[in-house]
């Protein structure tokens, strides 16, 4: 059953100075089912982040429809409270809050008791290997640790859907790889629906059990199912990688087996 429904979604920006229209999302249509882990891959500037902003309800679409759990995120902003968690490209931690206080900010907004906030935030930070850094300020943590706090912050509100906006893109490969593994483990064990936006093909293939390829401006060029067994076959992964690259280069929809 689809938890995210996107129908003919379009987003057009009007530039302030020149009044020129810029199409960021062009007739986007697809569904995402519950418990699916979907990678959205596309070139830089193709409208992936705009799509996530609309999905979060932070921006209004120009036309078309987007529903999350039966609600329109922008119009029914408050009705999706606690249902969506997001991890951004930058950690976006509040510098004046310690790791545990940053983690529990969503719980504070949702009205959990202080004891419950501390309990859940500590549990998530411990689960992500930060048990010894609960009281550290962001400035005292490494980039990877800060991103773990951001991940804990998004997951500890126990959202139905978790969104990641190039969340590991600025980390070194070793840290990013470890975080990807941790993330996948958490998503599968907690049975979340996850939407992972990235411009890196390897990352998209590693994480998603489905890959949606965005053109520029954002439209679906390909929608590919990735079976779990597929990920053990390096030659298949390599072929898929090349095919997605070709689709992106041509910016044209191509049917894939």
């Amino acid at each position, binding site marked *: 059953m689809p938890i995210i429904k996107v129908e003919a979604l379009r987003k057009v920006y009007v530039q302030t100075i020149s009044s020129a229209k810029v199409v960021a999302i062009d007739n986007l249509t697809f569904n995402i089912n519950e418990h699916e882990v979907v990678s959205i891959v596309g070139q830089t500037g193709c409208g992936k982040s705009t799509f996530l902003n609309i999905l979060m309800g932070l921006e209004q679409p120009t036309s078309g429809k987007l529903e999350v759990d039966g609600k329109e995120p922008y119009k029914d*902003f408050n009705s999706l*409270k606690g249902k969506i968690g*997001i991890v951004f490209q930058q950690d976006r931690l509040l510098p004046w809050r*310690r790791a545990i206080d940053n983690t529990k900010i969503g719980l504070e*907004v*949702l009205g959990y008791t202080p004891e419950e906030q501390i309990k859940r935030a500590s549990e998530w930070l411990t689960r992500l290997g930060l048990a010894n850094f609960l009281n550290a300020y962001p400035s005292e943590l490494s980039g990877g640790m800060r991103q773990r706090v951001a991940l804990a912050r998004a997951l500890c509100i126990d959202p139905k859907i978790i969104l990641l906006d190039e969340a590991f893109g600025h980390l070194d490969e070793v840290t990013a790889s470890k975080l990807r593994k941790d993330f996948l483990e958490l998503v599968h064990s907690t049975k979340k629906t996850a939407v992972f936006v990235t411009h890196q093909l390897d990352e998209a293939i590693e994480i998603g059990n489905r890959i949606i390829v965005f053109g520029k401006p954002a439209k679906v060029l390909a929608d590919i199912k990735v079976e779990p067994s597929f990920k053990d076959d390096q030659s298949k992964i390599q072929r898929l990688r090349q095919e997605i690259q070709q689709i992106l280069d041509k910016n044209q929809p191509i049917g894939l087996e």
Partner: protein
Amino acid sequence: MGKSSEAEDWAKPESIAAKTLGRLKIGKEAIISLIFFGVAWQIVSLFTPSYIVPGWQVIFDKMIRLQPYQIYVTVVRVVLALVVSFGLGVLGAVVMYLSKKLENYISPLVKLVMAVPVICWILFAVLWFSAVEFRIFFILVIVCCPVFLIDVLDALKGVPKDLRDMILSFRPSKMQYIRKLLLPAIVPAVLTSWKINLSLAIRVVTIAELVGAVSGIGFALNIAQANFSVAEVFAWTIVLILILLAAQVPVSWVESKALRWRL
């Protein structure tokens, strides 16, 4: 763990003193240059008449005979005016932050008020108001309030969009948004603004009292000048400097606690 160590830190009086002195930047070099200045002053006083450059003994002799009441009056005026200026400044800044239209109306007026020299406001106050206390209060508020307003408004506008989007992703209420993001985010700017305004208010209140009051340090300075008592003028000047330094201690203390994350 961290909270208890924080509590332990702040329970140590020497730790507070050390941090506060650090914040006031009283270093070894500063002490040496102050001692040098004091000695040079004393030497010059030995070769000049005491009505031009009085020695330290004469100045301190005058200092212990100053009327504490005048100090009290000035301090109360400054504190009251700063608190009201801060309240009005924050209110104005929030209103301007929430409404671009109102900002367009209020902003030119604020700039106009800030462009008027302090001495003109003092003259206007003397001409417009007969009540002395209101006169001083008006001058201080008209000078300090726009500084608070501009500083707080700039700080509110400076809260990064990234952080605003992050908080909004949790769908907070307006009050939660203000309490959890905006207020903590503007604390550094607010504290800086307090430091600037403390110094500004003490300078302005002295001139205002000198021209338009019958009490306070400014008024006492006026009397000392009329009596040609240079030692008393110096004594009051030292008191003013000490008041300013003392006033910065609580601000620095709050700063070192509230902005601990920056240390």
